């Protein structure tokens, strides 16, 4: 009896340590961010000036960069991921399902910095030489495609991000499609539906909120992604609608400037950006998990 009490006490102590550690993480970030927030107040979040030399610190360019690059990545990745998941659950011959699923999972295993170096030396030149002439040459009058042919910028960052979040969205979508009961598919087929009609009516219609949850989870992954984005986005704290102009994200500015930050005000402003990033990604992740959990329990009944 007594040895069990000791065991349970140990586990409880460990749990308290981990929970305490997470609280400490938040508190230390808050403490490091305090000087910057003290100077600017809540306005820190919507100020657009970022100039460490002049001591001007506003987070809006980075919030913009993070949001736009992540949403663009989601826009590119969602159709591919949903298609890949459908392929794996409903279309592919059984023999090739596992190998293809394995290959997609391997995409998630490639380290971020490796995507970054590939982005700099392969994807950025590709964007500069093919994508920019195509979009800017024909549609350059639109502010969206107006911009210099650097190769490094918002679009390239979003493309790398899209590749990186595809395994996450595919894996969750696959689980969601798998949890659709087979009798539903059989009923549709039995009524004479073609394969696509079965997928549309039996699988996709019942999975809408699950797909939504998968996309939000992918978005959460994209928001915090650091290295690959830092290496290809160009790192300029500008707010622009153009896909070809350099930009910066919350994660990229911290990665880029923290180790060489000049003075306490700069360090504190970067910590404040980290705090905002922590807040945003936590909310998005909790939301995604809630949606996914909610749909799972619904389809199983």
């Amino acid at each position, binding site marked *: 009896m007594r*040895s*069990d009490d000791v*065991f*349970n006490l140990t*586990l*409880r102590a*460990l*749990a308290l340590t*981990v*929970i305490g550690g*997470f609280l*400490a*993480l938040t508190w*230390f*970030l808050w*403490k*490091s961010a305090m000087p910057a927030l003290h100077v600017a107040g809540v306005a820190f979040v919507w100020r657009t000036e970022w100039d460490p030399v002049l001591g001007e610190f506003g987070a809006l360019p980075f919030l913009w960069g993070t949001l736009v690059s992540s949403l663009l990545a989601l826009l590119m990745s969602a*159709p*591919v*991921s949903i*298609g*890949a998941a*459908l*392929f794996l659950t409903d*279309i*592919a011959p059984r023999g090739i399902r596992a190998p293809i699923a394995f*290959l*997609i999972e*391997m*995409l998630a*295993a*490639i*380290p*971020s*910095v*490796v995507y*970054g*170096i590939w982005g700099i*030396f*392969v994807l950025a030149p590709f964007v500069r030489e093919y994508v920019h002439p195509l979009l800017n040459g024909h549609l350059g009058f639109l502010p969206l495609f107006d911009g210099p042919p650097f190769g490094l910028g918002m679009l390239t960052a979003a493309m790398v991000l899209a590749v990186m979040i*595809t395994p996450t969205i595919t894996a969750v979508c696959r689980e969601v499609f798998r949890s659709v009961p087979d009798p539903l598919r059989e009923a549709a087929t039995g009524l004479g539906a073609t394969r*696509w*009609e079965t*997928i549309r009516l039996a699988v996709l219609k019942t999975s809408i909120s699950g797909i939504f949850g998968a996309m939000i989870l992918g978005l959460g992954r994209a928001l*915090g992604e*650091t*290295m690959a984005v830092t*290496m290809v986005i160009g790192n300029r704290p500008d707010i622009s609608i153009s896909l070809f102009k350099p930009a910066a994200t919350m*994660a990229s500015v*911290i*990665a880029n400037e*923290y*180790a060489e930050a000049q003075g306490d005000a700069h360090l504190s402003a970067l910590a404040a950006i*980290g705090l905002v*990033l*922590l807040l945003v*990604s*936590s909310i998005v*992740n*909790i939301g995604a998990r809630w949606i996914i959990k909610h749909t799972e329990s619904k389809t199983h009944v």
Partner: protein
Amino acid sequence: MSEGLPRVQRRRHFKSVMANAIIAILAGFAILPLILVFSYIARAGLPALNLDFFYKLPAPAGELGGGMANAIAGSLLMVVMSGLMAIPPGLLCGLYVAEFPNQKLALALRFVIDLLTGVPSIVIGLFAYAVLVVPMGGFNAWAGSAALAIIMLPVVSRTTEEILRLIPGQLREAGLALGLPRWKVLLRLIIRAGRSAIATGVFLAIARASGETAPLLFTSFNNQYWTKSLSEPVASLPVQIYTYAISPYEEWHRLAWAGSLVLVSVVFAINLLSRLLLKRGAK
């Protein structure tokens, strides 16, 4: 009427074939990047890879040759240290959450672990900087390892939890019926029953930590030489790849590709090994 029906059916059939083809093409798009990335790394990395890479120190900027021996050693050191810090508590956290679901504290822990999984690794770096770099007066190996450990812990805990939930309750009951204390049942029977699957989770966490760059940038920083003490900055493979990739020197780009090839090979090897282990354990 009798002529219209086949036409409708033909259109439905055509639509279905088209949709299937589009889905297959989308799936192709999903794996295309893997092929593109991997083939390019192999092509650019293999010619740059030689023995020097594994046992020489980095050469000064502008000079030819040199290697990443210190970065490989540094990565190894920090991954081992972070593994020691993260794996035992990670296992126990997973065990606690899976086996004591009626305790409020276990539910709270589960929520915090879920939150930790979603914390961007760069934010974890900021925390390690505040707690271990500032008080110790400079970038050091401890801070880098601790940051990696915080990233590994939730991965280990969550896979352990998932595996333990799959182990049938009869095993617990059988152990308890034999008069074993609960801790012995859990540590000796239940963990052992799931050991190959748990090991897979541990390996995946190690693979993840080996490739992490962002939290090391301002914790362990970088070092062009061998590290003599854990309270000094230490080089690591991912940070070295980053530094070389964004440098203006052709020779350094070459080494960065060689480093990427080594890093990706190690990570893939760990992934494959852990899967084989899982298959063997399942038999």
